[in-house]
């Protein structure tokens, strides 16, 4: 394998406390190394450029059944954004839900090298993996939806968390997954009969437990299994005015699980869970309350779910939420897709408009949270692609964060009522490149427990992004447009030690790996006849045909972890 030497770049590597130091990065055999032979190595002159680890996305719906139904649903979306075949790359389409190849190309062009696909019904895991194989140039992993799985609900209700943990360990392996995803706990099961839960203490119909039991139980299970990431939680009451209270209650519920060392929960796309006001007419931001809580507590991490004002497609396993969104009116299509014993799902095309008060306030909430939560290590930047906006809009979000001028320019175009309600004019903070590197790679990798990602220390994966930004000579806050452009198009992207993007063009194709956890429980999971019988009762697929086999993962990266049960 070729050796690469990146010379004289301004390196920003927060995990190793390196802030804009002019230094060289050496790469050999796909890893960052101490040094390489300069004569034999391919030398990249990075003088005047910013060098960071490849971007890590903690939450982006890029593959799987839900995403693909979204694709099928929207020919009107694709026709706006077509991508031609080249000698090297495949053709495809965007816009809000790009086809698989295009997804890989666009992430890579932004200098991103790792993406988490955060929502997958276990029963459809093979589908998700088949699609991930077709997303080149990035490493990826999936989170399995487990918060409303009957087996989990029953074992938690029984109070037997160890048994629950063993089932979940099996499921994580069987679905080749990386983390536990919980969506509107209890709500999805209720949605099976068209109902929902509305507070942490509502009883889930037909199961004697509450959302609170599920959340705390799962967080404990997560700890028992020594999972690298925390539980990945989409809160109850998401998308409903006044829900910031539920969000704070949820975080408070998890305080008891916290042992003081590492976070125990990750609230995803928290923007959608930070609404204040009693109804849509009095809709306002709950960002301050959420930020205050997070500033005072250390047991949680979050990602934003920033709105970028796009004609996009919302999709979530939160079926009841999508239906209530649909009922607000003005939408032409609604998809609901329940999955037996596991989950539900919904899709609605949605156009976030600046002139719409609620949409504009949502945009403001996302930025308020990012700016008011003091510790960037608690925050990951996402748009909850494609829910808040497509992932390739990230550079717009960066600009709103590092440049007050940029957000003022956008705020000026927003709905007047939203402008009056926005807290943004009171917020002076502007992200530094260092902080930006935290919320886009270093912090995300840390929150995910990815040891070899998000940094450029010796032994890290040689995933590197080089942007045309000179931190010495550029006032990024003032010149936000060229910097935004630079983030849209990396000069170089290096994946596993190979240059895949050069001068903003794809020059090589690599498949990218799929990371998954082999969770080893102390007592190996026994598939007894009882479990098989249960399987036949619960699912319409035979036990033998359920697990994802090796066939479905082109380039696997198995990560073995030892559980404490």
């Amino acid at each position: 394998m070729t050796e690469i030497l990146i010379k004289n770049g301004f390196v920003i590597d927060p995990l190793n406390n390196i802030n804009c130091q002019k230094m060289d990065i050496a790469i050999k055999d796909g890893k960052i190394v101490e040094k390489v032979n300069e004569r034999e190595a391919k030398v990249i002159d990075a003088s005047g450029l910013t060098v960071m680890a490849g971007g890590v996305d903690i939450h982006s719906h890029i593959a799987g059944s839900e995403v693909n139904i979204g694709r099928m649903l929207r020919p009107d979306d694709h026709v706006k954004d077509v991508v031609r075949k080249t000698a090297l790359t495949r053709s495809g389409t965007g816009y809000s839900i790009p086809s698989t190849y295009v997804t890989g190309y666009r992430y890579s062009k932004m200098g991103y090298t790792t993406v988490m696909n955060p929502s997958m019904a276990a029963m459809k895991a093979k589908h998700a993996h088949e699609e991930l194989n077709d997303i080149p140039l990035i490493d990826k992993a999936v989170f399995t939806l487990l918060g409303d799985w009957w087996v989990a609900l029953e074992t938690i209700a029984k109070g037997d968390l160890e048994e629950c943990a063993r089932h979940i360990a099996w499921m994580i392996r069987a679905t080749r997954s990386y983390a536990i995803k919980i969506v509107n706990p209890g709500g999805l099961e209720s949605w099976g009969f068209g109902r929902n839960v509305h507070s942490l203490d509502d009883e889930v119909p037909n199961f004697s437990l509450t959302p609170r039991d599920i959340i705390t139980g799962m967080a404990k299970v997560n700890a028992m299994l020594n999972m690298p990431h925390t539980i990945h939680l989409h809160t109850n009451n998401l998308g409903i005015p006044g829900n910031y209270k539920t969000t704070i209650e949820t975080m408070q519920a998890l305080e008891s699980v916290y042992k003081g060392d590492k976070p125990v929960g990750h609230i995803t796309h928290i923007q959608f869970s930070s609404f204040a006001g009693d109804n849509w007419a009095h809709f306002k931001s709950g960002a301050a309350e959420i930020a205050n809580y997070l500033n005072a507590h250390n047991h949680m991490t979050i990602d934003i779910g920033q709105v970028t004002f796009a004609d996009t497609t919302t999709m979530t396993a939160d079926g009841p939420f999508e239906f209530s969104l649909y009922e607000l009116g003005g939408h032409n299509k609604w998809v609901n897709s329940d999955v037996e014993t596991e989950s539900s799902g919904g899709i609605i095309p949605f156009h976030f408009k600046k002139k719409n008060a609620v949409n504009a306030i949502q945009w403001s909430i996302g930025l308020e949270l990012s700016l008011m939560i003091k510790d960037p290590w608690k925050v990951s930047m996402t748009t909850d692609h494609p829910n808040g906006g497509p992932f390739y809009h990230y550079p717009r979000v960066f600009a709103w964060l590092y440049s007050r001028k940029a957000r003022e320019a956008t705020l000026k175009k927003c709905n007047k009522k939203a402008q009056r309600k926005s807290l943004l004019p009171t917020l002076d903070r502007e992200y530094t490149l260092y902080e930006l590197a935290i919320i886009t790679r270093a912090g995300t990798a840390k929150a995910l427990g990815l040891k070899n990602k998000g940094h450029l220390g010796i032994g890290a994966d040689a995933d590197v992004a080089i942007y045309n930004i000179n931190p010495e000579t550029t006032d990024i806050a003032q010149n936000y447009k060229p910097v935004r452009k630079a983030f849209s198009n990396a000069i170089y992207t290096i994946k596993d030690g190979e240059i895949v993007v050069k001068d903003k063009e794809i020059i090589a194709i690599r498949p990218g790996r799929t990371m998954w956890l082999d969770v080893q429980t102390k007592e190996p999971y026994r598939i007894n006849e009882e479990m098989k019988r249960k399987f036949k009762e619960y699912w319409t697929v035979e036990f033998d045909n359920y697990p994802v086999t090796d066939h479905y993962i082109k380039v696997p990266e198995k990560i073995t972890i030892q559980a404490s049960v």
Partner: protein
Amino acid sequence: MITITPKRKFDVPIQAACINVDVFTGKTLNEIKKLAITEGKENLTLDDAFDLTEDKTLETPNITLTGDFSKVKRIGQGMKTGEIIINGNVGMHTGEKLAGGKIVINGNSDGWTGSEMKKGLIEIHGDAGDYTASPFRGNSAGMKGGLITVDGNVGSNVGCYLQGGTIKIKGSAGRFLGHHMSDGTIYVEKNCASRAGTFMTGGKIIINGTVELLMPTFTIDSIKPKVKVDATQNAQGPFYVFLGDIAERGTGKIFALKTTNPELATYEKYL
């Protein structure tokens, strides 16, 4: 004026969105000849497939097409100004997203003519195909303005998701006329097949001939002596006026001529 005639009979479809006054404007004849088109997968230039001549004495129409263009798609797509006359049949997507100007078709047009049109005029002096003035698959934003006139008959699903503008049909109309329309006017001089106005929430459909079968989702509103088609035309009644689609809580109107629709008389008892 540029005159374009096919060099040969075409078998596989040709995509020629470049046949468009906006694109031709400011180009020499030689430059126009070199504009890119495709025939199937083959990349060609206009003069590979067509003979082009220029008559500098004539300003309008800007482009005249003569011959069989039924396999040529996307003529005049997105055009903003100018005039195209087509003497012959023409292929799909003619005048799609038209934003101004005029397209005259002295022949039959195919599907999606005037699809998602915003402004301008399309005159079809023959029959018009399915999905005339209807948007692309999955799009619920249809024709917004302008005028389409058809001398002959139209196919099915014409004027779907209509949001404005007028469609006048001198012949008969196929099924699902004005499906999901929210505004605008469709006038049919002759007969209309079943399922007109399904899912409509606004606008009006005027049928001067017989209505094959009225959807049960329409309810009778009144009988009106006449109705305005547009600024230049009134239709003489009396008309039964139906409101619908009530399943969508719509307030669209179907005007059906009383004299040609005696079987609709059963609705009179609800008046």
